[in-house]
């Protein structure tokens, strides 16, 4: 399946807002990442031109930060915490369960671009261990049943939308 199509008019208007800005590269990239979920490689050249930078410099900044991605991620980015507290509270089995349920390895995105499975070093919500993030929502005190029902919920919400 193809990743969602990019609305180039929207892309152009975001770039135009920051045109000629002196230190505008990172704010501009953040906006693009926010709007499209990733930074399409074909956006590198127009961004560079708008800010009077070399395309190679723009790519350097994008690849430096983990927050910027050159490949599209899923609609739901699942970040499972593997910090100390979460580990002690059983995050490893949560991760293994999710890998099996979604048929994804760590860092991979599903073919239908619905889910991306990632792990992070700490979510800063240790009292809720084990935790995970789905996009911007925190889910704590996870147990296998809870995880399965969560994933079903997100899968269903996709189906609802396509009805």
């Amino acid at each position, binding site marked *: 399946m193809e990743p969602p199509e990019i609305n180039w008019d929207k892309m152009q208007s975001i770039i135009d807002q920051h045109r000629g800005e002196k230190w505008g590269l990172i704010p501009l990239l953040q906006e693009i990442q926010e709007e499209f979920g990733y930074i399409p*490689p074909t956006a*590198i050249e127009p961004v560079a031109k708008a800010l009077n*930078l*070399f*395309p*190679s*410099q723009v*790519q*350097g900044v994008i690849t*430096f930060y983990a927050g910027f991605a050159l490949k599209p991620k899923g609609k739901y980015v699942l970040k499972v915490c593997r910090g100390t507290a979460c580990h002690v509270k059983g995050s490893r089995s949560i991760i293994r369960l999710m890998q099996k349920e979604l048929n994804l390895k760590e860092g991979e995105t599903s073919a239908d671009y619905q889910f991306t499975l990632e792990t992070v070093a700490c979510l800063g919500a240790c009292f809720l261990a084990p935790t995970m993030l789905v996009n911007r929502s925190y889910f704590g005190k996870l147990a296998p049943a809870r995880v399965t029902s969560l994933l079903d919920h997100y899968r269903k919400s996709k189906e609802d939308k396509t009805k």
Partner: protein
Amino acid sequence: MKQISLSIDGKIVDCSAGTSLLKAAEANGIKIPRLCDHPELKPVGACRLCIVEDQKTGRIMASCVTPAAQDMAVLTDSDRIKNHRRNIVRLMMAEHPESCLVCNKGNRCRLRQVAAELGIGETRLYAMPNASPFEQANPFIIRDLSKCILCGKCIRADHELVVVGAIDYNHRGFKSRPATVHELPLENSSCTFCGTCVSICPTGALSPHAPAGDRPFVGTPEREIQSICGFCGVGCALAMGTAGDRIVEVNPSQLPGTVNKSTLCVRGHFAHDFLNAAERLTHPAIVKDGQPVSAAWEEALKLIASRFLEIKKAEGPQSVAFWGSSKCTNEENYLFQKMARVFLETNHVDNIGNFFGQSLVRRMDEQAGGKCRINRLQDLDKAQVILVLGANPTHSTPVVAYYLKRAARQGIPLVVVEPRETELVHYAALWLRIKPQTDLELINGLAGLLHPKMGDAPALIDQQTPGFNALGASSGSLELERIGRITGLDVRTLEKTIELLRGKKPAIVVGNGILQQKYGIHSSAAVMNLLLIGGGLGVTGAGIYMLAGENNQIGAMDMGSAPDLFPGREPLADDGVRRAWEQRWNTKLPSNPGFTVAGMIEAAEKGILKALYIMGENPLRSLPQPQRVKEALQKLDFLVVQDILNTETTQIADVILPGAAFSEKKGSFTNLEGRIQSFSEVVSPPGDARPDWEILDQLAVRLGKHNAYGSLEKIRTEIREFVPMYKDLQDCGQGWITETHPSAGVADTAAADSLISFSAAESADQSPDKDYPFEALLGALRFHLGSGTRSTHSQRMISFGIKGEIGISPEDGVALGLQNGDRVAIASKYGGIEREIRMEEGLGRGQVYIPLAVNGNDAMNLIGLSDLTEPGSSGLKMCRVRLSKV
């Protein structure tokens, strides 16, 4: 600058405030190891080898990025520092592949040097190889990034020195590596293959790709000898690496004060393998029964001398001509024209550099009263504003482009006047997208409107700078609307341009787009007016930078290789000048001006010219209407061609003499700045070939009463004595043209005004032609020089396989139903060619761009043969064509 003092290793040193500790130590003879430091690059403190210890605080600081401070006390080699340095190098080595035995970098590797100096043979760490793809598909650069130590010099040189930006760091930590956009191979990136990164890389991560062939060279060159590049007019200083008697590698020279410093271009760096081509001429040959037969030098020279003298006796000196060479040295050009004038009594002396624009440069020189002969590129960083007219230096003279881009980055406004979107346009404060060949209107308009006395009574202005009234009167030459209509520029842009130029002393960069255009003779004069009005004459950072396309087109003219000039740009027409030369050479000299190159072809066609001696030129490839040129030269009774390669022209010669390339002889070239650079041989000429000056010297002995010079030094002594302009000609190293009319204080004075005169010529009707609806612009490609005689013999260029596709605008492409790679036939009223096309975004509708040099330089079939100084000349830059799919 405030002076401060501090202690380094117990020694008290003085330096100015703000100097880095590293520089302060260096200046006082204290050596500190470093890997990422380079005198021309901003220090970044990447390698941390230059660390020093602050004795007072115990802090360890990278000395390259730490400014010295008053009363600081640092140690550069304490035990703590030594320990840290060793650990840094051990870690680098642990990550480095263990291929030192076979690495071509050899003893030039800085990592190896540093490790050896620190005594690290074994790291005693687990090896952590950092595998990276090995890239060697392009014929110029091999990238083995597993050897990269992240010093960043390649990236910094790319961004700061040549300003191309093809690579930058990607990722971070262990995965960090220099990468191109989308991590595409170099040939699919904006890399221009200048090779600056290769020369500056401290390890074997970047190395030159040996040209394909039976004996590709492996290893490091045995020795390195200095020379001067023989390609374009910048005259870069080279360090040529040799093995045996072959040149195997070229790097920028490390000598101080060169024009190119640490940069080169793809030609200078990688195209010199043409010197080892199989087509090099190695023996004299005399054509017998239509076949060239190897001959001895004695026989060949005797034949040439006797035939020339006999033809001169039978038909008169007007029937013999001498053609050469904007590529040969000053000394050779001096000898050549002297031989022609003294022994054959003819002024038919010219070279192709004059044909392709130097003749107009000479007129501008006269217009400026000879006050504008030295223009140092390094002064561009002091310019107030830079105007670039009809020039595409990123392809024709890349090192000039580096200077311009660096100046633009410094904040100096660049105004680029150019019909297509070239790379330089992206650095311009203003891009004037002018209709081709309408520059005359623009420049005249700008000059008139910027006239400092605008607002004074026109009669007064006309008195001081004649022609101004005519200019103003000629149907509103100074009206922005009219200028806009003719040039295709909008009034707002014109107003902005005038504001940008007003009150500033301009540096004007002029390329073949002006010199070779249809109105070149007027446009170049208008450019000089603009400079004079701006008060830019004789001011550092202002002036005219003429982009001489060939390595010695200026020197050739200076040495008298012109039908109406004596050496030193002295006019033949001046009786006093001629008598002085008669005295110097102890002979009578002819006073009639001779034929130009175009005139020689016409004279050959008419049967007036019977004998021609061509040295170091290839007219059958470089001139317009090549078939006509061939037929004309074939009509001659006797044609001698002296060259280094088997060319189109040697194919029709009666006698072929093998000369020597610049790397195989002593000599000097004069570059576009007026810098006279002397060099010595790097290797010997191949086979039986001889330095061209030796050939001419020996020939002159057989032509008349000539005591052979026998040595180049003797020729130089004579030049220094007889040509005051060249009294600074060195035996080794560089000198400068001596300006015979020093230009101090000419700006803004009445004297400057007297040099200005306007011509109200107008660009003729530009209405479209039904039969030939497209405007074809001819231009250079950075991979070749001129007609490509030498560069197309470079194995690397052959491997790179440049097709030189015709550029066409996407709109036109779609309208004609064309796709990239389609073959088209292009015809002008002079002839036709076939080429593949490629859509080029930066072209306007109705415009096509045709690169020169490729396909036997067949683009020349589209242009008519005419001399640029003839008012009716249609120029050599543009022609009207029609296109049809094949």
